[in-house]
Structure formats: structure tokens, C-alpha cells
């Protein structure tokens, strides 16, 4: 963040960390609901069958890997946006 003094940077860092904890919780709850909706559709029993368990595990893996990859692409685009001076007012 350009334009912040050292003290302001430290304070902002505290804000970012608190926010990251909330973001992680939000991502975790989204992930549980998304994989539940996609993988669990058989209510003839109240415990998961093998197919559902496998689906949940792969859904979580795919999401974590996909989210990581998109995070890298996002950072690259964001950096390019900041240098290139594109008109994305909000992200500068």
C-alpha cells in the first residue's frame, strides 16, 4: 500500500491479519457447503457411502488447488494492472 507511513503499515498489517482469519473461515464454510451440495444426494442412510466420501475428498483437493492457481493468476493480473495503469480505479 503506497503512501502509508511505517506506523500506518504496521496498523494496516494488523487489520489484514484479522481479515485473513475471517476470510479463511468464510472460505472453509463455503467449501463445506459447495462439496456437500455437489457430492451428497442420497438420503437413504444417515452416513456417507464410499462414493460420497471419495467425491468430498476430491472436491476439497480440486478446490484448494484451483483456488491456489487462481490466486497466482490474480496476483499477476493485479500487478500488471498496477504497472500498466489500466483504468480499474478500484484496484489501485
Amino acid at each position, binding site marked *: *500500500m503506497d503512501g502509508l507511513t511505517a506506523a500506518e503499515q504496521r496498523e494496516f498489517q494488523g487489520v*489484514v491479519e484479522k*481479515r*485473513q*482469519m475471517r*476470510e*479463511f*473461515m468464510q*472460505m*472453509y*464454510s463455503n*467449501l*463445506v*457447503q459447495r*462439496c*456437500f*451440495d455437489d*457430492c*451428497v*444426494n442420497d*438420503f437413504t*442412510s*444417515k*452416513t*456417507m457411502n464410499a462414493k*460420497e*466420501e471419495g467425491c*468430498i*475428498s476430491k472436491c*476439497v483437493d480440486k478446490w*484448494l488447488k484451483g*483456488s*491456489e492457481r*487462481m*490466486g*497466482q493468476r*490474480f*496476483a*499477476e493480473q*493485479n*500487478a500488471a494492472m*498496477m504497472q500498466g495503469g489500466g483504468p480499474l480505479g478500484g484496484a489501485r
Partner: protein
Amino acid sequence: MSMFGFGGVNQGPTSAQKIAAAEAELEMVTDMFNRLTHSCFKKCVPREYREPDLNKGESVCLDRCVAKFFEVNVKVSEQMQNQAATRQGGTPGTGGMFGM
């Protein structure tokens, strides 16, 4: 009261910290309940709404759906704790990595 072993609130926290942690946990449980009711109502109750009461099938389905949602919650929590250990450090895709 620690979640996923994060944040050592055990070394004599202040009242404010203890209440904040209690509120964070209530938020987490309420959020889980809201998501669970949304997903299970959609999976168990068809939208034709023929009668005002829950029929047998819908009731049994809702009961099992709640149980399975908890099971998935535990499985995902375990899977991420194992993976967090192997990745030693923050989870990818959080705020910090947007080139900020």
C-alpha cells in the same frame, strides 16, 4: 476455545478476548446452521409445496441430511488440517497473496 489450533487464547485472555472468541464461535455455528438449513431444505423439500406440513419422506430426509452435513464438516476439517500440516503455513488463496 482455540479453532484449528490457531491463536493461543489460553494464556490468561482478557474478558473482551474471551467474549470475542465466544461471539466468533457463535457466528461460526450460526453460519453453519444457515448453510445447512438452506442446502437440506433444497435437497429434501420439493418446490411444489402440496401441503403445509412436512410429510414422512421430507422429515426423514431432513434428519439424515443434518447428520450428513455434520459428517462432511468433520471430514473437510480433518482433510484441511492434514494438508495445512504438509503445506506448513497459511492456506492458499487468502487475502495476503494478491500482490498487495
